[in-house]
């Protein structure tokens, strides 16, 4: 029950390993069933078009789960993630590739805690979209 990342090995500016995932319709459906969020915006293209989107979009929490996975994969212990606050700023369509990223912005030797800036990118027709931006997490290192 401790992070595999040692406080002394981390510097401000360090990036956590990025985590990539191509978003598939079946996964979004599985997420709807597992989470209980059955909003048709995430399942029914006709409905999504009726409210102004070109097709269904992934749940914000689906994207956030992927971002959290990038952080806990790096930490090697889910209990070392203490808090997270994210802003959802762009939608994610099916078959797009989500790239979760993070960077250390501050370190507190007294608590061995680090603050991370975290975000998610999608490349859409050559333009970088940020489904999650201006977000941060606090982690406890060993």
């Amino acid at each position: 029950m401790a992070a595999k990342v040692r406080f002394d090995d981390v510097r401000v500016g360090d990036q956590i390993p990025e985590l990539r995932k191509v978003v598939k319709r079946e996964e979004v459906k599985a997420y709807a069933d597992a989470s209980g969020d059955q909003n048709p915006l995430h399942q029914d293209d006709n409905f999504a078009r009726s409210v102004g989107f070109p097709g269904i979009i992934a749940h914000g929490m689906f994207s956030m789960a992927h971002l959290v996975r990038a952080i806990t994969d790096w930490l090697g212990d889910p209990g070392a993630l203490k808090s997270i606050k994210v802003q959802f700023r762009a939608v994610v369509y099916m078959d797009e590739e989500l790239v979760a990223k993070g960077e250390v912005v501050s370190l507190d030797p007294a608590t061995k805690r680090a603050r991370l800036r975290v975000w998610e990118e999608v490349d859409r027709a050559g333009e970088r979209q940020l489904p999650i931006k201006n977000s941060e997490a606090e982690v406890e290192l060993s």
Partner: protein
Amino acid sequence: MPMNQALKGKEYQQVSFTVERDRVLRFADAIGEDDQVFRDPDAARAAGYPEQVAPPTFVTVMQIMTSGQAVLDEDLGLNYMMVVHGEQEYDWRRPVVVGDVLSAVPRIADIYAKGPNEFLVIEAEIKDASGETVVVARSTLLSRGTAGER
């Protein structure tokens, strides 16, 4: 139609939720989580946990139940069809594990408008059977284009 601002501070009925192994596994599958600590109780114990650990954002399962009361509250007047998720915050005191019996009293922490959109903030302090806080969840729902004329 804008939301009813008078509901700021309103508390809803307590929601209880038992963390079941099968649900945790399905959730782990859905998010592509293959770390054994989330899948195998023995691996979780070897890592120092009392039971199979729920992925951190598993809390959303309970949160969807808690926020449902506000979202469907006719007095609030939220048009769910125009809603997208704006922000999400979790403050964990410990990881959720299989067998936890959790409860929370959801509360409308804030309602405000910014430009054409409205924001609904729902907060829930999720506690375990012994009354200890496990995680504080705060979600902001964005209602597109409903700020309108008052």
